[in-house]
């Protein structure tokens, strides 16, 4: 399968420049990056993509087996790196994608110039025995699944072909409000579980590439102590706390976020 269309890859910026690959988290798609791309594409080759099951990725590529763990997504990232053959990339992973970057870099460090972990969390669920606070309980995650269900009533079979890409009439998808965050409810449920129930605390120490942990100053999903934990576990990593609040600094404070990414990537990771 052609991974470019599978992941709806977009490449902008000068060819041959240092490469920045932007990976969106659970919820929306590569549009999440559109406020930081203008600043980055001046100096970098910027690679954007949608995770399989999100945005305009190829829905037929989604299988429960492959995408029931973050390993499947990490495989996709490595396949993208190989297929695009742009040399080592600075991988910017937002939220759950930060851990995809961690898994991919642990497996094939040579594919990466560095990792930017934006609002990362290696484990959202509390682990009192280990003294770890992720911020959520398993019941909270069930509640999120209910919220997803409650907001997918309008999905249904009739909307699916429009939302999941209509090659003959692409404008249909654009016109729909909320379309950036639409996904097949079945897929969204599985992705929500993978996102919020994965535990990658043990994988952090396996990262050997230069890493920047960038957290927000007030983030209901990935609180400061979680960012500090990630920083402490990844050898040689740097931690910055952005002024941005919320869980999506690339939207709330695009200039600051782009500057942090650019400074790190320019230094070669």
């Amino acid at each position, binding site marked *: 399968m052609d991974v470019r269309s599978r992941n709806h890859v977009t490449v902008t910026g000068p060819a041959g420049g240092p490469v920045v690959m932007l990976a969106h*988290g*659970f*919820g*929306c798609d590569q*549009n*999440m990056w*559109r406020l930081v791309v203008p600043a980055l594409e001046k100096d970098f080759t910027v690679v954007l993509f949608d995770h399989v099951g999100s945005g305009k990725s190829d829905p037929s590529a989604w299988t429960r087996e492959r995408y029931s763990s973050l390993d499947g997504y990490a495989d996709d990232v490595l396949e993208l790196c190989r297929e695009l053959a742009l040399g080592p990339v600075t991988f910017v992973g937002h*939220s759950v994608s930060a851990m995809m970057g961690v898994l991919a870099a642990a497996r094939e460090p040579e594919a990466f110039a560095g990792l930017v972990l934006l609002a990362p969390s290696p484990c959202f669920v509390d682990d009192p025995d280990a003294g770890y606070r992720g911020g*959520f*309980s398993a019941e*909270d*995650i*069930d*509640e*999120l*699944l*209910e*919220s*997803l*269900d*409650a*907001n997918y*009533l309008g999905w249904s079979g009739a909307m699916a072909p429009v939302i999941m890409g209509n090659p003959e009439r692409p404008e249909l998808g654009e016109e729909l*409000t*909320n379309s*950036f*965050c639409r996904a097949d409810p079945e897929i969204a449920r599985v992705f929500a579980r993978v996102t*919020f129930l994965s535990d990658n605390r043990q994988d952090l120490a396996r990262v050997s590439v230069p890493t920047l942990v960038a957290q927000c100053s*007030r983030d*209901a*999903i990935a609180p400061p102590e979680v960012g500090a934990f990630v920083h402490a576990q990844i050898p040689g990593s740097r931690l910055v706390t952005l002024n941005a*609040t*919320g*869980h*999506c600094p690339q*939207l*709330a404070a695009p200039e600051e976020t782009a500057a942090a990414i650019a400074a790190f990537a320019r230094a070669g990771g």
Partner: protein
Amino acid sequence: MMCETGDAEEGGRHGHRGPEDEQAQFSALLEDSAEDLYEHAPCGYLSTLLDGRIAKVNVTLLDWLGYGRDDLVGRKHFSDLLTVGGRLYHETHYAPLLMMQGEVSGIALELKAADGSRLPVLVTSTVKTGSDGQPLLIRTTLFDARERRAYETELLRARKDADLERDRLKRLNATLQRTLLPPTLASVPGLDVTAYYHIASVDEVGGDFYDLFPLVDGTWGLFLGDVCGKGAAAAALTSLARYTLRAAAVYDPDPATVLANLNTVLNHEYNGNDPRFCTVVFGLLTPDTDRDGFRVTLASGGHPPALLMRADGTADYLPTPGGQLIGVLPDAHIATTTVHLAPGDTLLLHTDGLTEAHTVSGDEDRYGDDALLDFCRTLAPTNASDTTDAVRGLLDTFGTGVEDDTAVLAVHVPRPTRQKEQ
């Protein structure tokens, strides 16, 4: 409004309210201050800073939540009012959408009241921008959605039940379909035989069938057929056809006689106002003692003709003209033909799901007999497994254009040299 004023005028002198009174009353209503409208609107109003901090809230929402104004303004963020799951949804969907689109509408969330109770709401937000287009604050309206959510929850539950039932039906159909086909084909000495069954719809049992089984003295019987219709009735007919053919072949293996017996059985079974019929080709395979290979006698009751792909690379239909549908007439005419299957030859039996398939889904064009013959001419010379693989690939290219189930059975006599090599 104009009409009402006119009506009121008529009764004005008889103690009813005059137009002046009515006007005054309207004015009194319209003097309802904007402030009062905001505070006591039948929906919750909330204004927050861009980071979600609550800047203004109306009385309606405070009453719903059981909070005082000072509990919220400047102290809490909008997401603090949500359940934890709702907060996750807010951070991963709602907030990003709002920032990207400038508005989000009709999202179902749950508020957590001061006493811990929950209130389902439908939430809509817009970003208010200044004259320079800079976002300033977020305006949010919240509608009480208790009734609606209860109804939607009921709908969701009903859909889940329906999904479960549909899965159950699919499993049942798949199981039924399997029982109508041999789990594996018998292994015939000196022959390679493969079959493929293409299921057009997982919601209904199709009516195609085939089998291959031993008869006396090294001879073998095979059949492939297609009953009319789909679903449970077709499955019952398929079952009847299969065991009748097996039993009839033991009694007298002459192919025309076997089909004549099936015809009699179907006529007896479905005599009356529910005629049921099928098309079948029945074959008797006898090892040729004079030369290598097999003698094949085929009898057809209204079934598409078999195709012979020869070792020399040629291919042709084996016509069985005049054979009539089995089960319609008391004495159906059954056509037979006999052919020698030499080493390297491959015989293909198929049901019309293949030739009737639309080559482009939704298009009128059907694949047709000529196209199949051309297809087989490019295949020849071939063998059994390559043939069924090729047909399988062909059906895949039609996608949903294959409207009917399709069964194919390929019989091949391996060349002696290849046998030695193997």
